[in-house]
């Protein structure tokens, strides 16, 4: 019954020997394999969109509810560090794109240097994030039992000079919601960066040993997609968290 017209079930092997080295046995061609992998990567990015989607939903709701607290909380963030980080991340996306291009055009040096650039920019981003988090820690702006909202009721003279208005106590308490979301969103983003940097390191080592020069660059391409996605998340986080009503 198995010897039907549709399914030739001769016991012989198909032409495994002719396969390119990176073609896994269950794909027909390299082309099919690459497209499949990149489609899989995009689906994974969809799950990431939804993962951050929950946080963005929470953000939008509370921003509408507690707008003054969000303004006050946002003004506590340093726009310089935030802008610098945006710059770093956008540049790292560019270097990553250049890395993919170098791999596509089989430029060994280009690839290595692009990856090193991406790595440095990424680590720089995390370094700045650490500086920012430390500052939050010192100001008792980390949500939880150490959180201190009294500073928002009585801003320091410098803060008033910058245009911050004192908040009513009930609204000042709501700054904890803002900082909860700030840490949840930037924390999740930073976690993605850390994972990305770990993968990047592995890729860099392989690239330095001469990897990815044989046209099999699916990993570089898909890592690039991941890295750009993390960049996009930041593109939204930056205005939403740092730039609320800076004119006030």
């Amino acid at each position, binding site marked *: 019954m198995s010897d039907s017209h549709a399914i030739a079930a001769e016991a012989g092997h198909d032409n495994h020997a002719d396969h390119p080295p990176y073609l896994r046995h269950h794909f027909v061609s390299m082309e099919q394999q690459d497209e499949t992998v990149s489609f899989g990567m995009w689906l994974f990015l969809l799950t990431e969109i939804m993962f951050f989607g929950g946080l963005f939903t929470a953000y939008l709701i509370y921003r509408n509810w507690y707008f003054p607290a969000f303004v006050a909380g946002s003004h506590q963030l340093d726009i310089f560090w935030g802008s610098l980080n945006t710059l770093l991340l956008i540049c790292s996306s560019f270097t990553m794109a250049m890395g993919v291009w170098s791999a596509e055009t089989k430029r060994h040096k280009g690839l290595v240097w692009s990856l090193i650039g991406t790595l440095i920019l990424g680590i720089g981003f995390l370094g700045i994030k650490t500086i920012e988090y430390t500052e939050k820690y010192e100001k008792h702006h980390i949500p939880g039992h150490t959180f201190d909202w009294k500073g928002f009721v009585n801003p320091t003279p410098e803060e008033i000079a910058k245009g911050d208005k004192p908040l*009513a*106590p*009930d609204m000042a308490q709501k700054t904890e919601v803002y900082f909860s979301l700030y840490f949840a969103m930037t924390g999740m983003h930073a976690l993605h960066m850390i994972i990305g940097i770990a993968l990047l390191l592995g890729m860099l080592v392989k690239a330095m040993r001469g990897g990815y020069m044989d046209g099999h660059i699916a990993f570089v391409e898909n890592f690039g997609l991941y890295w750009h996605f993390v960049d996009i998340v930041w593109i939204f986080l930056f205005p939403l968290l740092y730039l609320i009503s800076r004119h006030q």
Partner: protein
Amino acid sequence: MGLSPVIWQFLVKWMVNFAIIPPEASKIAPQVDALLVFMTLVSLVGLVLVGLLVTAFSIMYRRDKNPVATQIEGSTLLEATWTIIPLGLFLVMFVWGSVLYFRIYTPPPNAMNIYVVGKQWMWKAEHPGGQHEINSLHVPTGRPIQITLISQDVFHSFSIPAFRVKREAIPGRYTTVWFEATTPGAYHLFCTQYCGTQHSGMVGEVDVLTPEDYKKWLAGSTSGVSLAQNGERLFASLSCNACHNGQPDSRGPSLADVYGSKLMLTTGQPILVDEAYLRQAILNPSQHITQGYAPIMPTYQGQISEEGLISLVEYIKNLSSNYRVQQTLNTTGLLPEQPDKTSSRPAGAQGVTKP
């Protein structure tokens, strides 16, 4: 018969008490039941239809009888039939159900308000006259009763199956439900939202009384201080009257007749003053400032219990003139500061959280 006596007893008991629906003890109950019966009938018809089709086809086209199947692609007409007919029926149920939903959750304006606070694991009912009850609720027949619910800790759900009403008690927010009891008797009051260890112990009894019995019950179980009276004391002891006294130079808006009015907030948003608004304005004043006033009111979050808030809300609801506010202001103004003077009184204002 080989039935054991225990099982026999069960069956007899079940036959005797057999009921498919709980007693209909509220005005809305028969209306809900009408829809339930309609849905049950539609479901039965649907189920019987599917059952008949499957059984008939299974008998008619079993292999013995019909050894060779006739391949059929499908039928757009049939497809459309069983898309449109169920859709139509479901839409009828949707409209009918929505109408009921609005009725159940839209209290009539003349409803008598009873506050119910849920906490792990009991229901505390506060009647306007100052009667307190735990895990029981006395209501008269023939009068719409609005229940204003709030939870002190986790989600609870206030459910009276005999009235076909249910509403979640949410921490930090008032929700309402209303009913008009029709038949005197005792009915179950359940917490139906899982709320922790003693969830199944969070049950009570709703006692529906005739209006006369209800009057007797009210008189017999009063604590001597109505909610509004208790609220008045709180109003004074929390020094609300320092600002909200209706005098021309007062820092806060006058609260006389504020309930039910439409206010314009500083945010430019008009708002209807109801219980929920009053509660929020006490706890989160800065978001609820009336136009023309400065945001100087302190928050009372953590300083008043839910019962205290209820008293204050009830007091403000019933405040029709500032005369007594100003009177208390004068007397308290003469007295030296006495933080715990309320508790020294025999019937002190209840509801202030002691630090």
